[in-house]
């Protein structure tokens, strides 16, 4: 379990934004919308944002609180379908539907988090699989969830804010980015405050936490609820801004593993690591496809590329677990420390 006790930089961050965060935010909010092509927005940035948010939610649960979950995609599905149904049946503004969807996912997450009060590690991971299979089954079985659509695939509603239709790629991107930024700040506030102490205490030594009076059960359930709520919103972004369809098939076990890999590759219990991990997971297959098209001129068929992608990704994960359990985030820390030393010397 050494992976799950990976250290966090406990240093308090100042309440203001640090310089790198400001640079990234201004790039994201100003430079990207002005310069990025629709392809970059649609194929890279929109899935990146949704998966980053899902990774962030899972990191709160797995990285900070030490509870393994293989049901992330299920909570994404709950969020997406809940938002669709709230929007369809109540006609409330989209942001309200999204908040209600997050609450729904949080409640479902809480229910599937109950086994964590008794189970740990592997056994808990297996019990979260129940969420994965149950949710997918329920969404396919009861056509009410997809409003009786025969194919089960439904078009997501267009996001409208105060009469403004965010139909274009840039509009959806900015909507997604705003939500991801807000939730990232929220998560940062949670993990660097008193609740973060509870989460990490439960992860690092449950017995000691219990004896000194950290409310272990409550902390675990809060972690499950918060995490599932956030992953639920990620599901809304995935369906409403990226795919623009809502379907259970996209939220399968593969997606759950993908989110877990984002967290492991990026670094457990680091916020920026999650974004680095999501970036790698999204960009890597595209690069591989480009590379094979360029180098082998289409000789390798798409199915084979898919296989190669899996092999390389699997290898990468094993490599990370062995060589750098603290993930991309730790590599970035080392690089920036070295860079700073160079600058000081030069």
């Amino acid at each position: 379990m050494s992976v799950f006790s990976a250290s966090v930089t406990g240093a308090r961050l100042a309440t203001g934004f640090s310089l790198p965060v400001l640079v990234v935010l201004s790039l994201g909010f100003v430079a990207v919308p002005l310069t990025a092509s629709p392809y970059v927005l649609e194929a890279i940035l929109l899935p990146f944002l949704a998966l980053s948010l899902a990774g962030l939610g899972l990191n709160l649960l797995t990285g900070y609180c030490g509870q393994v979950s293989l049901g992330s995609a299920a909570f994404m599905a709950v969020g997406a379908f809940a938002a669709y149904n709230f929007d369809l049946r109540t006609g409330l503004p989209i942001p309200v539907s999204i908040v209600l969807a997050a609450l729904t996912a949080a409640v479902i997450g809480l229910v599937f988090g109950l086994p964590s009060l008794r189970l740990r590690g592997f056994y808990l991971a297996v019990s979260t699989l129940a969420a994965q299979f149950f949710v997918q089954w329920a969404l396919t079985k009861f056509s009410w969830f997809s409003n009786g659509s025969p194919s089960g695939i439904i078009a997501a509603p267009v996001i409208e804010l105060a009469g403004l239709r965010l139909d274009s790629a840039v509009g959806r991107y900015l909507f997604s980015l705003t939500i991801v930024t807000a939730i990232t700040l929220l998560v940062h506030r949670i993990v660097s405050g008193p609740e973060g102490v509870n989460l990490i205490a439960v992860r690092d030594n449950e017995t000691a936490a219990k004896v000194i009076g950290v409310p272990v059960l409550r902390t675990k359930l809060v972690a499950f609820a918060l995490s599932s709520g956030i992953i639920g919103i990620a599901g809304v972004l995935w369906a409403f801004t990226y795919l623009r369809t809502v379907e259970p098939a996209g939220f399968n076990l593969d997606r759950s593993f993908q989110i877990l890999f984002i967290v492991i590759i990026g670094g457990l219990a680091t916020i920026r690591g999650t974004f680095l991990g999501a970036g790698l997971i999204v960009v890597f297959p595209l690069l591989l496809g480009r590379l094979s098209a360029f180098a082998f001129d289409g000789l390798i068929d798409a199915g084979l590329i898919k296989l190669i992608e899996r092999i390389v990704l699997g290898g990468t994960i094993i490599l990370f677990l062995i060589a750098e359990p603290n993930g991309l985030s730790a590599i970035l820390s080392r690089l920036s420390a070295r860079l700073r030393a160079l600058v000081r010397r030069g």
Partner: protein
Amino acid sequence: MLSVLTGGLEAARLAQPPIAARVPELAPESIHAPHSALALEGVSLSFGGIHALRDVSFDLRPGEIRAVIGPNGAGKSSLVNVISGLYQADAGYIHLGGRRLRHLRPEALPKLGVARTFQNLALFPGLTVEQNVAAGLVFRRRHGLLAQLAGLPGARAEAAEVADRVRDVAGFLGITAHLHRLVSTLPYGLQKQVELARALVASPKVLLLDEPMAGMTATEKAEMAAHVRSARDRLGLATILIEHDIGVVMGLSDRIAVLDHGVKIADGTPPEVRRDPDVIRAYLGAEAA
């Protein structure tokens, strides 16, 4: 092992401050005395066929440092684990805070004014020293997550109170300089101090120390002993001390209980215990007695 122990006994005999004088009237069995901070009444504990504790009765007075010694496997840690609710006794009662309890829930300990440290460090490596110590105050927190996130004045005042308490205790134990370091980056001796700080931060009435000096250098041991003593003097703590270093135990404790194979074979002041033939037999073997 034996020579180490006899050496310890020898050393203790040479340098023996009359500490017992501070505690008046040392009747060995004062179980139901209303003035005890904690008492065990006929506690037994077994794991399968192994009897870890057999009918152990034991009391602890306010302001007293009470050592529990005995050879390896004598049941010392089991005793502490029963008191802290991690093990449930098969028989017997625990008297605590004027109540006679069959079992204790570990979650309830802090509210009952009991704090403990662990034989092997039980810190939270992913947190700073400050956060580790602050975790000892979590049970008192009145403001929930939403109040914290909203930055309500109450929640902020509470955070400031916690920070003050942590700074006080850190100052008391001399670890202020390390408050913002990750606890896993500290040397072992300091980590032990942090664990003591986490136990003391909530001002408990009863402190359980499970081998607080194991693996320490002589200097670190002396420092830790001084801390235990001054914590008692300042806070009026009742302390149960499990320790292998007989020299430290003799110098620090007011009374000593000796366990062997789960049975309490002796109980009394350090000079009494040192003279006890059963104790000598348990430590040195039958021939020596």
